[in-house]
């Protein structure tokens, strides 16, 4: 978890409310990712960023948006939380070598989100 923090670590919210999760890195890595992890589904990519203001969708992006205004911060927003978005959310970073794609990812400690 070194160099990557997530906030909050735990959150309980109600259906229909907006929620923003923050990922902060001190490694100056170019790539940042948001995953969700659910029993029976494993880790699934929500969105990722390959640079400041450069983002793209992952496998399960519906209902989520992201923003990256600085290299060190990657925000995940649930515009209107639903019970199906109850999950554990992990941020990850990587610094792929030129032309070698994703390479190794380093994960944060996770955020447990409960939507009632």
């Amino acid at each position: 978890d070194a160099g990557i923090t997530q906030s909050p670590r735990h959150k309980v919210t109600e259906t229909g409310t907006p929620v923003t999760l923050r990922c902060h890195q001190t490694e100056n890595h170019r790539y940042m990712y948001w995953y969700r992890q659910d029993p029976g589904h494993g880790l699934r990519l929500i969105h990722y960023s390959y640079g400041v203001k450069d983002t793209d969708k992952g496998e399960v992006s519906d209902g989520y948006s992201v923003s990256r205004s600085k290299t060190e911060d990657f925000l995940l927003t649930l515009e209107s939380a639903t019970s199906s978005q109850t999950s554990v959310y992990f941020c990850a970073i990587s610094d792929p070598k030129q032309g070698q794609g994703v390479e190794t990812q380093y994960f944060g400690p996770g955020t447990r989100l409960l939507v009632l």
Partner: protein
Amino acid sequence: SQKIEQNSEALNIQEGKTATLTCNYTNYSPAYLQWYRQDPGRGPVFLLLIRENEKEKRKERLKVTFDTTLKQSLFHITASQPADSATYLCARRNNAGNMLTFGGGTRLMVKP
């Protein structure tokens, strides 16, 4: 679609034995496969990466193989210890090289 599958059933072994975990993938062989370890309540931690042209890779008590014919990677932990108990995740790179797809993980329990 590019799927990656791991045995969802927990693997229980006795301390000192070799644990072998399996990762199977579909479609084309990825440029590489990765293995991660995840402890309860924590994020995954990278262990090993094996490239398509590498048959085997070792790191201390860990060994990973990559068989493009069987479309399979095996992850071995020799002389297993209770501290090795965790969930182990396999991941493959997608064709564009911009994201990883993870398997569901296999939980390993090493009993003293």
